[in-house]
């Protein structure tokens, strides 16, 4: 049992890190083409080996620790932002259950009965890494970036949590595995039970808040290259910077995976193997993220705040109330 679990852990960690690496390639390529450029073309065919080149470059760079940093927090911050991003994948079911040598293997590292709660608890921990990075760097840009990150996190966490309450009300469970199984359908309309059709508003809210949670454009206030140099990771270099970079992409993958699981039926789908369906859905989310980045400029800080509190929050409440009324009347 332990053996199976450790194999699953290793497979998932390797898959997520590989996914992060090639998400950077995907992002550069897609944004490049959206801006009339070609993106990376040098390393390998279509620049596919670019992530490896980047990794080697980052590893061999000098790790600069500026004088005046709070050393313990400075070293801890990248790890603290990286680990919560990876933890999310512990509860996301990535394929249908399989049977191997008579054992039934659940294709999820840990089938928690409070899966969603775990996901939301862990993703909001990620901001501690950013806050620590900003505070310990002793640089005004970093500090401003991390302040923005925490303010943004508090504002959007509320709507983020409320956006999936509708699903929980309908499904009456918090386990991600059960949620996925609930969304399966044997008919030709295999997608008919997906929660995105029952909770369209909830889905839009989830999508918006997830972008704000992962600090991606158009909500990338903590980084804001044009205002804050690089935001919370201004003072970081070499592998510490790379850890922040990877954790951003791991976060993206995490919210994509959770979004695919909650709203698009996870691994459910006809003909293709379940793992392929899951990866396909996550890929669609990632493409949307990148598409969004290639399309819209950054929000102004006050716009971001008023949008979070005056638009998303009332809509999320409305969604919960309407769903609750429907569930009660059923």
């Amino acid at each position, binding site marked *: 049992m332990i053996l199976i679990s450790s194999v699953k852990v290793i497979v998932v960690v390797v898959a997520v890190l590989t996914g992060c690496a090639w998400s950077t390639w995907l992002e550069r390529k*897609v944004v*490049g*083409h*959206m*801006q*009339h*450029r*070609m993106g990376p*073309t040098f390393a390998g065919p279509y620049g596919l080996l670019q992530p490896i080149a980047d990794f080697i470059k980052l590893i061999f760079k000098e790790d600069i620790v500026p004088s005046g940093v709070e050393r313990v927090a400075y070293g801890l911050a990248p790890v603290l932002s990286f680990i919560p991003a990876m933890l999310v994948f512990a509860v996301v079911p990535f394929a249908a259950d399989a049977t191997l040598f008579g054992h039934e293997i659940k294709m999820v590292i840990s089938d928690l009965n409070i899966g969603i709660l775990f996901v939301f608890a862990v993703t909001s921990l990620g901001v501690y890494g950013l806050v620590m990075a900003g505070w310990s760097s002793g640089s005004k840009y970093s500090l401003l970036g991390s302040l923005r990150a925490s303010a943004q996190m508090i504002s959007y966490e509320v709507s983020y949590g409320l956006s999936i309450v509708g699903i929980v009300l309908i499904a009456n469970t918090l386990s991600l595995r059960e949620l996925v199984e609930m969304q399966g359908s044997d008919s030709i309309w295999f997608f008919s039970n997906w929660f995105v059709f029952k909770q369209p508003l909830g889905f*839009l809210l989830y999508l918006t808040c997830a972008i704000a949670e992962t600090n991606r454009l158009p909500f990338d206030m903590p980084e804001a290259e044009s205002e804050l140099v690089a935001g919370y990771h201004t003072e970081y270099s070499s592998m510490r910077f790379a850890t922040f970079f990877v954790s951003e992409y791991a976060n993206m993958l995490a919210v994509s995976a959770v979004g695919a699981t909650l709203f698009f039926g996870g691994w459910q789908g006809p003909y293709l193997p379940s793992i392929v369906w899951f990866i396909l859905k996550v890929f669609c989310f990632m493409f949307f993220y990148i*598409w969004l980045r*290639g*399309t*819209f400029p950054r929000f102004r800080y006050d716009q971001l705040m*008023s*949008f979070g509190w*005056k*638009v998303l929050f*009332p*809509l999320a409440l409305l969604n919960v109330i309407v769903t609750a009324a429907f569930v009660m009347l059923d």
Partner: protein
Amino acid sequence: MKEVLKAVVNVFLKMPLGFMVTIKYFFRKPVTLDYPHKKRPMAPRYRGRHYLERYDDGTERCVCCGLCAAACPADAIYMEPEENEKGERRARIYEINLLRCIFCGFCEEACPEEAIFLGHEYEFSDYERSSFLWTKEQMLVQHPRKDNPFKRIYRRVRKAYGAPDKIS
């Protein structure tokens, strides 16, 4: 309430328009080239790095008169004369500092012997400043040379501007 309505309008009416624009360009051919592998064709009149012409028998055209150095607004040309075996005047040292050169083309305008031309080469990256000091040996063209495309263009341009033909 006003904000909510505005956001709804933006999400359902305006944001799709933006998405359509970027996805349209995503499927279009990029305007940039895969540069070191593919290069954009140069304009015929492009002024790149200089080269020195020869006569058909191989002797250098340059007589080291110094007009190009006099015309050069960047003061990039240095030369010293000598005599060749037939007792004709030619350059012993002819150097162009490509870091000073502004590629204006005044040297080829000034040259009475049609000896110096600006070619199409524009990739001069190097590791040392000293390697940007181009000598006569580096700039002289190979001896057996059939045609000089730049000379034809140069003459056509002069004609178009109504400049008199030089002695050739």
